[in-house]
């Protein structure tokens, strides 16, 4: 425990800025994954235990595209589209068969998908740790704000994730498609009776969720190592986000992701070995004090 260092950091403006920037970026990346998870659950009633695998696939797709084109934009796009298409295939052929079934079924099918994807990745890309590295075109001197260092690439990441989050919020809240999705979450039978193809809605929601996870995977490929099985830790963190934020609540997921992002960035100074433990303590507190989560409706 280096709590004195944490206290020093919180009182010094430069350290505060640096750690806050890192916390925001980590939190927003986590939000992309967790919002996909909560969206899929909210509409399809399915706990996607294989969600972390789409994150991993996004990272690998980005890595492959970057190797060919050397363009980070193309890489991120490849990660999003690749994960979304993969999600579409899995939804159509496997997961759509278990809608409305008990959790055990969902768990087993997702476990099967994880096993297959982890192995497929090892066959195609090998079992070694890989990293994309920050692309040359995005290597710029860091911003200095109030004496704090904000890496240029982190700022880019934050901007991209913020845009994606804004598009998601606008799409769900203001468009016709978003209204259909929200209606299908509440009463799919009625939506179908009104002449809307709910199968298509379900498939596209799953693809969007998988695409969001893929986006996070692709965006974090330059700063984290890419390896088979990398999806599990982000899956656990997304679960924690859903518990803290409330199942099915996008706003709650945003707040919870940022809380965890800040816990991670400041925790790495104050209690580096206990960061994960701290996240669990926050989660346990929310469970005891407000079981439906920050953004969840009571009684749900």
């Amino acid at each position, binding site marked *: 425990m280096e709590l004195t260092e944490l206290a020093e950091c919180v009182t010094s403006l430069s350290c505060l800025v640096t750690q806050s920037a890192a916390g925001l970026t980590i939190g927003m990346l986590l939000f992309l994954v967790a919002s996909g998870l909560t969206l899929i659950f909210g509409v399809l009633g399915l*706990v996607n235990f294989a969600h972390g695998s789409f994150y991993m696939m996004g990272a690998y797709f980005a890595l492959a595209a970057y190797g060919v084109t050397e363009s980070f934009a193309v890489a991120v796009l490849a990660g999003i589209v690749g994960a979304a298409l993969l999600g579409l295939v899995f939804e159509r052929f496997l997961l759509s068969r278990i809608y409305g079934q008990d959790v055990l079924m969902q768990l*087993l099918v997702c*476990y*099967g998908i994880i096993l297959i994807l982890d192995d*497929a990745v090892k066959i195609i890309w090998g079992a070694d740790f890989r990293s994309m590295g920050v692309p040359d075109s995005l290597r710029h001197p860091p911003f200095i704000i109030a004496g704090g260092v904000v890496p240029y690439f982190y700022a880019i990441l934050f901007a991209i994730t913020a845009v994606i989050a804004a598009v998601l919020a606008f799409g769900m809240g203001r468009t016709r498609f978003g209204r259909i999705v929200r209606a299908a979450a509440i009463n799919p039978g009625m939506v179908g009776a009104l002449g809307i193809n709910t199968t298509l809605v379900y498939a596209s929601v799953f693809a969007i969720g998988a695409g969001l996870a893929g986006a996070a995977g692709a965006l974090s490929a330059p700063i984290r190592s890419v390896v088979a099985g990398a999806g599990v830790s982000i899956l656990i963190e997304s*679960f*924690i986000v859903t518990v803290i934020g409330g199942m099915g609540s996008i706003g709650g997921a945003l707040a919870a992701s940022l809380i965890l992002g800040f816990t991670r960035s400041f925790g790495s100074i104050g209690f580096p070995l206990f960061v994960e*433990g701290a996240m669990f303590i926050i989660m346990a507190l929310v469970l005891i004090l407000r079981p439906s989560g920050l953004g969840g409706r009571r009684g749900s």
Partner: protein
Amino acid sequence: MARDILLAGVILAGFLGLEFTGLGSSGLLDFAIRFAIFGLLAMSLNLLIGTTGLVSFGHAAYFGMGAYSFGLLMQSGGWSIPAAIAVAILATALLALVVGALCVRLSEIYFAFLTLAFQMLLHSLILSWIGLTGGDQGLMGGIPKPAFWGIELAKPAHLAGFGMFCLLLSVVLLRQIIRSPFGAALRMLRDNPDRAGFLGLSVYRYRLAAFVIAGAFAGLSGVLMSLYVSGAFPTFAFWTTSGEAIFMIMLGGIQVFLGPLVGTAIFLLLNDWITALTEHHGLFMGTILLIITLGLRKGLLDFVMEWRAARRRAAP
């Protein structure tokens, strides 16, 4: 229905075929020990999934806890094996009590992923507390196995016998638990928790009790595992171990009492066979899992029992 029966027949024939190919057979004793370990793990998990209706995805936490606490006690010296086993089971039950107290009041979905999350917390704790657990190297240096009551666990034959004895004892105990009024209450919680609550049962306490009992038996299976490999490794508490336990239950069947044991045998044979044939273990296991889950939608024994029941009904 006819198509389902055909599918079940093909799968069964495949398993029978496996037994006689001799591929990956690593000795009968070895198989017996592993069967005792994983059979016990699967049976204990089925007390939660099949009997109580609590789908835990974090059961390997108690497997790992049992293995590590037993290994650490034995390495500290001065402990006899029976005493260390008892303390390890107690420690595991205590962990299950803490996690269960937080988790069992939650809805089905939260329960599944919170048990998973707490298991991963234990896993990362094992990885980062290197001074105590050896980190990702695992508990090295071997586990001393002093003889007790004329049993020398250092000998594979004795270990297999001891494992089988533990399995048998646990199966009898679990059967008593499930057949008792307590077990009847658990089944009622599975089928209709609201009604159980109206009748005045404390849903929370019964679920917690089932969770702790299942955790304690998983702890015993972890103890056997650490005796078998003479150490303890972080993968014991990794989520894949939980997944494998659920896979075993699914293979055998959740509604038949001994289903998990059948599933364990099938899983181990399948595992040895696939490992001997190919390094792409996950690809094959995942595909088989998907075929069985989406094709049969229940375990093999469940399937056989329902088929027999249906045939009996159809007969005049």
